[in-house]
């Protein structure tokens, strides 16, 4: 199963001649504990680079505290949506962490897209894991442009979110066409000026298949600073994205 997370960061890794790519230094991820890493099987990255598949590629992680390569040449297809949900639980030395392609395809200019699921102490909240009491609210956003911000929704203010399920009814309850093309869309969620979910593929929120559900650690959303980006604005894209948010509803006086 997934571990509790409080941040997720989408990282684009572009091949520029060498078969080895080091991760960039991402200030937001420095000294953060990585719970899971996921290599996405999407067509294009947020910047429009074509993605290559996950075959013949291996991940090596250098851990910050020990300065050792604690994970060596792990096949990244084990880290896709259909792979194993490995509990990494390490602080990465990201610039010394890399992937290596050992296949024969021409990959220069192409990319991988990884999502790093991590602990973000600035956003997490204490939640009742043993006897949770939850409520479910709808959250929707009509895609209008390449980047569309959520509207303020008072019902969501300071709500501690445990999961966001992407739902695909044909119409929303108020009669709007629901979007069902997710692979070209990315969501960014913010709270107090921190984008704790940064360009995460929307498809990862579609959890009805045999995927392990996302476990968000009671995360609040500042909706007006949160948005969805789409790579195209065709008719199929300019529809409404419909979520159901699972929210911690434990009475305040019984929270640990």
């Amino acid at each position, binding site marked *: 199963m997934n571990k509790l997370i409080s941040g997720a960061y989408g990282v684009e890794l572009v091949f520029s001649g060498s078969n080895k790519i080091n991760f960039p230094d991402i200030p937001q991820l420095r000294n953060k504990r990585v719970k899971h890493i996921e290599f996405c099987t999407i067509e294009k990255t947020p910047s429009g680079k074509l993605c290559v598949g996950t075959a013949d590629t291996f991940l090596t992680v250098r851990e910050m505290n020990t300065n050792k390569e604690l994970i060596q040449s792990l096949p990244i297809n084990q880290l896709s949506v259909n792979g194993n949900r490995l509990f990494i639980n390490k602080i990465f030395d990201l610039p010394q962490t890399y992937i290596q392609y050992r296949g024969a395809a021409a990959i220069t200019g192409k990319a991988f897209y990884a999502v790093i699921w991590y602990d973000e102490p600035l956003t997490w909240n204490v939640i009742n894991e043993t006897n*949770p*009491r*939850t*409520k*479910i*609210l*709808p959250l929707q956003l009509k895609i209008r442009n390449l980047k569309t911000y959520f509207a303020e929704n008072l019902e969501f203010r300071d709500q501690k979110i445990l999961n966001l*399920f992407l*739902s*695909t*009814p*044909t*119409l929303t*309850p108020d009669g709007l066409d629901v979007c069902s093309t997710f692979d070209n869309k990315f969501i960014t969620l913010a709270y107090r000026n921190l984008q704790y979910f940064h360009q995460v593929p929307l498809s990862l929120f579609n*959890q*009805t*298949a*045999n*995927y*392990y*559900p996302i476990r968000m650690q009671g995360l609040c959303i500042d909706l007006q600073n949160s948005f969805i980006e789409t790579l195209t604005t065709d008719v199929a894209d300019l529809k409404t994205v*419909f979520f*159901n948010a*699972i929210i911690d*509803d434990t009475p305040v006086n019984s929270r640990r």
Partner: protein
Amino acid sequence: MTTIQNVATIELSVNESDHRIPFLYDAIKNKKINNIYLFCGSLDFDLTSPYSQSIIDPIGPIGIEDYFLNLIDANGNPFVKNYSFNNNIVSGDQINFEEISFDRILDLNKSHLLYNIGTNFGIRKLLLVIFYQSENFKKFDDEVNGSITFEVPITSTNQDILLKDFVSNNLQGKKIKKIIPGYNQIIPNSFLDLVTTDGKHIQNLPSLLIGNQGTKEFYFDNIEIDVEKSYFRQRGNYTHHMGIIQPEIVNEKFTLTFIF
């Protein structure tokens, strides 16, 4: 993970001219509701209701067919608003669903299923499968201490078989954690109607629901089955597939494995 202690399975008549089904069911009155699934039929084979001869309809082929769950708890809190119930559909074609626990006593007068379906398709039949608690769950333990498998003597497409007619006395006294329907090619168009020795009722639980293999898990709450009051209900073709009798599956054997 879903824990099964009691189940109420209700036949829904979805009328295109209406948009709302209330939750006025005596079986769940003042009971803590754990999970709710919408069970529908399949495009590939017929499955009839355990209560009538009505075919359970598949969801999808008529175009727009959206269901939204709205639940109000006994204290008047609307704690589930427009949850897309299309995410909780289980059928022979659809085993992708979300595991959402509600864990509250409902105000049955105000809780309801809102729906929006295409017109000119008449009344549609579906099943609402509601998991509920009548007491605290027993301590969870998924360790397998043993199992017994029995072949179910199915001879008809519409058959109620008392459990004591095909299970041995070895099941007596066993605290059951899982029941696994076993089949080779025929999808189990059947229901388990189980009564426990302490009076709990698992009413017409679709075999398909617990036969699903994947990351969604169903565990019984260490139940002891009263085999003299419990039934296996076959409700669908067992020698047909896609409407054609296929010789290699006429001799299909259907089994139930009890894990304790």
